[in-house]
């Protein structure tokens, strides 16, 4: 395999996996929040907090990808 082709394939796989990880991060945060709210009986507070953290984690993936693409 040529060097250019292997680089293209690598980036294709990396960026195509980015969207799924953003969506999953948000949902993981949301479900941790819902679960903790059920445990501690503090209905909307922890759900909102962990949803925010999940969204932050998802967008951190995008930021990391942007940083990586600038370095390459």
């Amino acid at each position, binding site marked *: *395999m040529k*060097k250019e082709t*292997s680089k293209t*394939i*690598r980036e294709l*796989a*990396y960026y*195509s*996996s980015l969207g*799924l*990880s953003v969506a*999953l*991060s948000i949902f*993981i*945060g949301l479900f*941790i929040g819902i679960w903790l709210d059920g445990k501690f009986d503090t209905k909307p507070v922890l759900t909102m907090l*962990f949803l925010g*953290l*999940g969204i*932050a*984690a*998802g967008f*951190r*993936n995008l930021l990391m990808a942007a940083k990586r693409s600038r370095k390459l």
Partner: protein
Amino acid sequence: MEHPYLFFVKLFEAIGLGHFVHGNVHVVYMWVVMAILILLGWLAGKNTQLVPEPVQNVFEVLVSGLEEFMVGITGEEGRWLFPLAASIFLFVFLGNLIGLVPGFFPPTASLNTTAALALVTVVFTHVIGIKYHGAKYYKHFMGPVWWMVPIILPIELIGHAARILSLSFRLFGNMMGHELVLGILFALAGAFFAPLPIMALGIFVALVQAFVFFLLSVMYFTGAMEHAH
């Protein structure tokens, strides 16, 4: 989705293990994939020669190509990770591909198999991190400044959980969807060879999914070997 006729399920029913097999089809077919891989490996390494036989030749091309590709990502220090990464690739690829044979069920179309693979991969990234950075590995989770720790730590933990889920769900979803489409098309218009284009696409999907799994695990390994950002 239970298939109409699975060859190895019938085989296990014949020797009186039907009860076990119906709940664990993917386990049985994982054994089949393992047996095929062991057989191929034995054939390839039986008598290695300077001028290779066909089986040895195929394996040499495959393994050396994968190794070159992987070292291109990790750098020379990551060469010792190759056995794990290559066995992940070979197992996932053969597991995907075996679903195209009539009477066989792809073991990767079950969430149990893919979650096991993803767990092994992600746990091993932390093993690599501890091996390379020792106790300082915790800095990977702490962010650049100390007052940001309460924000960064949960974000990093969620990110690592998302790695496990995205690795396992992607492979499972693709293979499960492929099987489902094949089943539906076969029931609708099997007599007109309707599933045939999807089966041709399935070869491509099997290769791409195995490759993506391999590539992402290698990238996670590389991320664990790097210094904290």
